[in-house]
């Protein structure tokens, strides 16, 4: 189901940095239509009944349960939300797909990983790159949950450097088969998959090639033992060995040498879905910790009324809110871009591919930001529970262990941080996003005389929006100078890239929250005042991060007058006219959460 309006002027990927977004142009969870609300409830109910209720079995590494619950998810159509109708799916829009990943994820990371590996990287490469025969043969079975998929990219020697794999594909003498040999590692769903997307190299090709491989132990495929993992304990993760595995030539995915591209695009989609899959965990951890804090008494007082605990609850709720705001904003951008391409005559497949690729920067930003938020959230969840949080009898320690993987897979957070800035700079060079003009404008502003007008901040969140505009200038100032200084060698200066990336991430996240709160406020939503408080709190923290990271970068690569000028610019661009009362904001947010006894936004 495509959500109604398609606004042709929607921002292109990465443009958020140089253009202002109108709050009415972003999609927020408040905009879910009735069908999406119903889907959300259905998925939450499933999560409660089938996943949360079985938490102990998941923690006891009951892999069979993972498979069984996956099958039930298939029966309810949850595995086929994103699959086109002609291949047995629901053909729903991208927002609905993201919503499903979101609400199914909070019971346990084990299920969430199995779900993501199957629907995302296990199925998507075929729907996005498969030919008609391949789609007809494999997609309906994957969509219904009759078959399960896995994605075999990583190898012992090829992790972050995914294109360096040694797995070989050799054409048979009769030209009918490829014989695949090699070792894959860390393969989710390996223990119960029927179909694998396998990446292998043909001859000495520069790039790897993708293949659809049916899992058949009589065809040279064997599995290692289940890995012993810190978290996601009931997610099956094994090594997969291929020994002259015969794969019909017609099972090559896309064309020879296109595998790296497939792998990267599958990961782009995977990244926003992974971000979504960390959202409901944050809501649930926040709710569970709040309930505990309301009940637990020390010094004759519920701990929820201590400032130390309130501060945690406020930050946990705020980060969850911000993650939601940014994830659904990007999801709708992707959906709209897909619809625009379809209306321009692209095939569904082509449109989807391009739509997702367009927002690869946002997908990387989300993956990093939200995976780190859930980690912090679970960590503070444990802290609120005190000693009980350290015990396996409460859900906090599992949430904490499960959260840890999100920073590693689908591209580590280091790789995604650098990708985000790298892709943006590339888009700038290609002229897809005009970075040069705005960067020059900032440079001349640095030498100009600042305006001393007293701005009018009577509109809701107008000072905050102005602050975002200034933070964007910080990014342009720092990244612009770095590009100038290092040119194509910028890639080598990772610490600079990481600093720039952190600034970029904070801008996108904070802006998304501000726009959502502004929209809610203009629409007179019930909880708009709390949304505003959370947007303000997040922005305050973001300004701090931007300030620190930018300063680190500036004092490391600029010297003398240039350094002084940029530091002055930084001061100007991170300066509030009216400082928010942070303790007041935290109290307000925390008191709402504790009063509702759950994450209520």
């Amino acid at each position, binding site marked *: *189901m495509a959500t109604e309006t398609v606004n042709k002027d929607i921002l292109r990927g990465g443009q958020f940095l140089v253009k202002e977004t109108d709050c009415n142009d972003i999609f927020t969870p408040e905009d879910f239509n*009735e*069908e999406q*609300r*119903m*889907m959300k*409830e*259905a998925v939450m*109910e*499933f999560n409660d*009944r089938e996943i949360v209720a079985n938490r102990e079995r998941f923690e006891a590494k009951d892999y069979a349960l993972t498979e069984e619950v996956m099958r039930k998810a298939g*029966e*309810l*159509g*949850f595995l*086929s*939300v994103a699959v086109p109708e002609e291949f047995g799916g*629901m053909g*729903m829009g991208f927002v609905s797909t993201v919503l499903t990943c979101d609400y199914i994820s909070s019971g346990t990371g084990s299920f969430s990983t199995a779900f993501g590996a199957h629907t995302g990287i296990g199925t998507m490469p075929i729907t996005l790159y498969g030919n008609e025969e391949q789609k007809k043969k494999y997609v309906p079975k994957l969509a219904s949950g009759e078959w399960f998929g896995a994605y075999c990219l990583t190898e012992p020697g090829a992790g972050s450097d995914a294109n360096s794999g040694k797995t070989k594909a050799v054409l048979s003498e009769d030209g009918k088969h490829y014989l695949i040999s090699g070792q894959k590692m860390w393969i989710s769903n390996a223990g119960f998959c029927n179909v694998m997307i396998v990446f292998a190299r043909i001859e000495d090709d520069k790039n790897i090639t993708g293949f659809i491989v049916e899992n058949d132990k009589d065809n040279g495929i064997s599995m290692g033992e289940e890995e012993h993992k810190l978290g996601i304990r009931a997610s099956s993760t094994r090594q997969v060995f291929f020994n002259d595995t015969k794969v019909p030539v017609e099972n090559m995915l896309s064309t020879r040498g296109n595998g790296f591209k497939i792998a990267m695009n599958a990961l782009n989609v995977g990244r926003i879905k992974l971000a979504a899959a960390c959202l409901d965990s944050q809501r649930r951890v926040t709710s569970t910790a709040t309930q505990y804090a309301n009940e637990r008494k020390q010094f004759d007082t519920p701990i929820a009324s201590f400032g130390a605990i309130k501060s945690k609850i406020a930050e946990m709720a705020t980060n969850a809110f911000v993650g939601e705001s940014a994830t659904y904003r990007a999801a709708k951008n992707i959906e709209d871009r897909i619809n625009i391409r379809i209306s321009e005559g692209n095939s569904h497949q082509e449109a989807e591919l391009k739509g997702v690729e367009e927002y690869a920067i946002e997908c990387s930003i989300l993956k990093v930001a939200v995976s780190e938020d859930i980690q912090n959230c679970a960590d503070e969840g444990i802290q609120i529970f005190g000693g009980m949080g350290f015990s396996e009898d409460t859900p906090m320690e599992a949430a904490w262990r499960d959260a840890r993987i999100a920073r590693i897979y689908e591209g580590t957070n280091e790789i995604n941080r650098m990708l985000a800035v790298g892709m943006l700079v590339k888009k700038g060079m290609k002229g897809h996003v005009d970075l040069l003009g705005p960067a020059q404008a900032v440079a001349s502003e640095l030498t100009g005389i600042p305006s001393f007008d007293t701005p009018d901040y009577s509109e809701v969140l107008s000072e905050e929006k102005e602050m975002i505009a200034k933070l964007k200038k910080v990014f342009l100032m720092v990244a612009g100078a770095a590009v100038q200084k290092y040119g194509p060698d910028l890639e080598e200066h990772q610490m600079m890239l990481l600093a720039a990336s952190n600034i970029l991430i904070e801008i996108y996240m904070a802006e998304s929250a501000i726009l959502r709160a502004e929209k809610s406020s203009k629409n007179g939503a*019930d909880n708009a005042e709390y949304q505003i408080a959370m947007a303000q709190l997040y922005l305050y923290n973001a300004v701090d991060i931007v300030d620190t990271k930018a300063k680190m970068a500036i004092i490391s690569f600029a010297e003398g007058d240039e350094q002084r000028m940029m530091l002055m610019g930084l001061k100007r661009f991170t300066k509030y006219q009216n400082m928010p009362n942070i303790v007041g904001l935290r109290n307000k947010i925390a008191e709402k959460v504790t009063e*509702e006894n759950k994450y209520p936004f």
Partner: protein
Amino acid sequence: MKILVCISHVPDTTSKINFTEGDTKFDTNGVQFVINPNDEFGLTRAMWFKEKQGASVDVINVGGPETEPTLRKALAIGADAAIRVNTPATDGYSVAKQLASVVKDGAYDLVIAGRESIDYNGGMVPGMLAKLTDANFVNTCINLEIEGDNVTAIREIDGGKETVSTKLPLVVGGQKGLVEESDLRIPNMRGIMQARSKPLTVKEPVAVSPETTTASFEKPAPKGAVKLVDNVDELIDLLHNEAKVI
């Protein structure tokens, strides 16, 4: 067999209850609404009759447009068509009158309502509806089997069960037991999508004047703080002088 399931649109049990307009009106602000649990047991049993015996299942609600999401959820679960009688559900009698008019027009063989709805807990509608439509009536029904016109139903009675035989047309006041909680259905994605294209007919109400109006609502007094006393004399003193109960 034509089945009509009455669907009450009620606040989720975890909702915070407040009143407005001088405590005469329920405050729906921020309240999550759901299918009345007793009705959901009935709907799930009706789905069984649909799948096993080829019955048709319509659902009905008496209420304003805000109840439509609840009706559409029933459609997503598998009902064939929905009817909303466009008038606020004021009291049991007026709701029963509205339902009776639809039941007569639609010639339903079986009407399954909940024993009571969990919002106002009136528990009057199914009995009145049976009387108004000249149908047989089984209340607090925990098991329902139908062969042709012949009905075997089990009722929950104080401390035990009663098996009754009767005939269609029948009105049932249903509850947990008609099916179990684990039988309740999560709407599947296809059902949710199909709900959009299933008919939801809005009918204008027949003229009924409610027999009762709400004068005011009152919430139970909030629980006070606990006071620990360590001797009987003090306890007696407090009960007598402070709580004034002895």
